[in-house]
């Protein structure tokens, strides 16, 4: 049905945006990244220890401990939502994983004989099928995260409750459940497969901490999903104009439930990894981590009003927070200053973005 064009379309009235006015360079992520590089250079001169291999590994490991959850929260923030329950979910998933592992590794416990048997000496516990205990306990931890995500998504997308209130409630519910199932006591992963668990969560692969490798893989996957799939496009569209997204036939309810599930699963995985690093899952683990996670996402350019954000920003935000923490320690500044400085940076990053969009 196309009519032939009289002449090819020209753009005499519409100028093209300059390269530095579009894409990464014009985004908050871009100049927070610049700020981070500047900070690294300054730190390098300020402390000879900063760029040593040991310290870099340390930083990489530490920021990986919140970065995976930050990726998940970034999904939610892009749609204009918020998830305050991530800290509680981290703890609950970690706790369930370690409790399930301990339970099914103890001969005599109900159901445990499917997984383990005693060796001939009557003391050594041997797994029936290597890897099964590990798999089941991690799936149990992720399973409870999945349920929390489904409930969050159902309340927000189907019942239409506000994300803030729903996930604030869930923060309390899940933390409470954690205390209920553990009776307030921490638990630690034990049994014949606990050593695999520690290797997987806090081991070193090719000279890099294992959590860092998971983070990179997940971040790349997230970038592809956000920018190269219909689902990612719909996530951005819902954050930009939810009504428009619905009018064009996007299933807003489904996408929203999916992102809250993704967020909860990311938090659950993060919790399980932290548990491996700590060697236990205390009942007060990851308390108030949701604030660090959201702060990192926001510093990295995720817009709480929705419509902007990405994995690079999430990671840059986490790295910036960790480099500041690490830098203050190396510079022997009283570590209580840390929180104050983080707060200043959150406001500064958002302020600079506001000034820039006013000037544009």
């Amino acid at each position: 049905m196309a009519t032939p064009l009289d002449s090819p379309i020209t753009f005499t009235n519409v100028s093209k945006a300059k390269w530095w006015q579009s894409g990464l360079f014009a985004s908050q992520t871009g100049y927070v990244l610049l700020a981070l590089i500047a900070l690294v250079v300054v730190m390098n001169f300020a402390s000879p220890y900063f760029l040593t291999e040991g310290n870099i590994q340390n930083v990489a490991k530490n920021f990986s401990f919140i970065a995976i959850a930050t990726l998940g929260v970034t999904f939610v923030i892009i749609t204009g939502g918020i998830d305050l329950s991530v800290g509680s979910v981290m703890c609950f998933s970690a706790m369930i994983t370690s409790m399930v592992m301990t339970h099914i590794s103890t001969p005599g416990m109900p159901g445990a004989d499917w997984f383990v048997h005693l060796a001939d000496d009557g003391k050594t516990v041997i797994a029936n099928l290597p890897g099964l205990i590990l798999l089941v306990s991690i799936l149990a931890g992720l399973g409870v995260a999945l349920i929390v995500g489904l409930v969050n998504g159902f309340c927000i997308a189907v019942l239409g409750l506000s994300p803030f209130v729903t996930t604030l409630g869930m923060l309390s519910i899940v933390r409470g459940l954690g205390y209920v199932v553990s009776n307030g006591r921490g638990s630690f992963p034990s049994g014949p497969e606990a050593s695999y668990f520690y290797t997987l969560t806090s081991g070193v692969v090719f000279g890099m901490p294992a959590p860092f490798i998971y983070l990179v893989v997940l971040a790349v996957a997230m970038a592809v999903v956000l920018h190269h799939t219909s689902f990612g496009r719909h996530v951005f569209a819902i954050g930009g104009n939810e009504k428009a997204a619905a009018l064009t036939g996007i299933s807003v309810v489904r996408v929203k439930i999916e992102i809250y599930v993704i967020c909860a699963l990311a938090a659950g995985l993060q919790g399980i990894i932290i548990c491996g690093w700590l060697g236990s899952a205390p009942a007060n683990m990851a308390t108030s981590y949701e604030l660090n996670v959201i702060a990192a996402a926001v510093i990295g350019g995720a817009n709480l009003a929705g419509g902007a954000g990405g994995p690079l920003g999430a990671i840059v935000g986490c790295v910036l927070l960790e480099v500041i923490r690490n830098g203050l320690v190396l510079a022997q500044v009283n570590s209580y200053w840390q929180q104050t400085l983080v707060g200043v940076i959150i406001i500064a990053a958002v302020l600079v973005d506001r000034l820039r969009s006013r000037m544009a």
Partner: protein
Amino acid sequence: MVTPHDAGLAVLELKGIGKEFGAIRALHGVDLRVSPGEVVGLMGDNGAGKSTLVKIIAGNFPPSHGEIRFDGKPVHFARPIDARAIGIEVVYQDLALADNLTAAANVFLGRELTRKVGPFALLDHKAMAARALELFGELRSETRPHDLVKQMSGGQRQAVAIARTRLSNAKLVMMDEPTAAISVRQVEQVLSLIHRLKEQGVAVMLISHRMPDVFAVCDRVVVMRRGEKRADKAIGDTSPEEVTSLITGAKEAA
């Protein structure tokens, strides 16, 4: 001269459409025919039943009485998506665009082109940008597919919203107050967009309060008042004065 209207090839035909909301009679006995390539202005004061009629045609809710025929066949819509599937598109007053996405992304929103990469279906950015540029070309709009909608003028935004309807080769496009909130120069652009749709044989229903716009682009004007169709006249046989008196009720029917 035989206009498409006389020739009897209606794309949309309404017979005795009525709608009640509880005790309120919003529409009563509306007959209407729209032919391909015809631009029909739908006018009426607030509460006259214009938007109820548009919503019935768009599939937002079913009529209480009467029959809708599209392309000669009777149709029933359960949801707006059913109406869209057979070729009825609505350009909403607030345009329903996502500001944070590019023009091409908005045009293809909800029906993205994908290509298979292994087991995954990834977006085909190149094909979507090329098709969007083609559509903007047809509409003579200087709009770049990769520009963000939030950086665009009102006229460009209209072009994006209208390009979306062209994507599916809609046979009937209903535009709700497209010229209500934009500058004079942009109004010109929008009216020329309507001309482009007409050239390509698309039937357009223009819902507008702006008399000059209706008289500039429409072939026919339909006036609604108190839920009934009071007039249906070729634009050459009427005048803004007559239409105004029909809208206000100073003249009962024509």
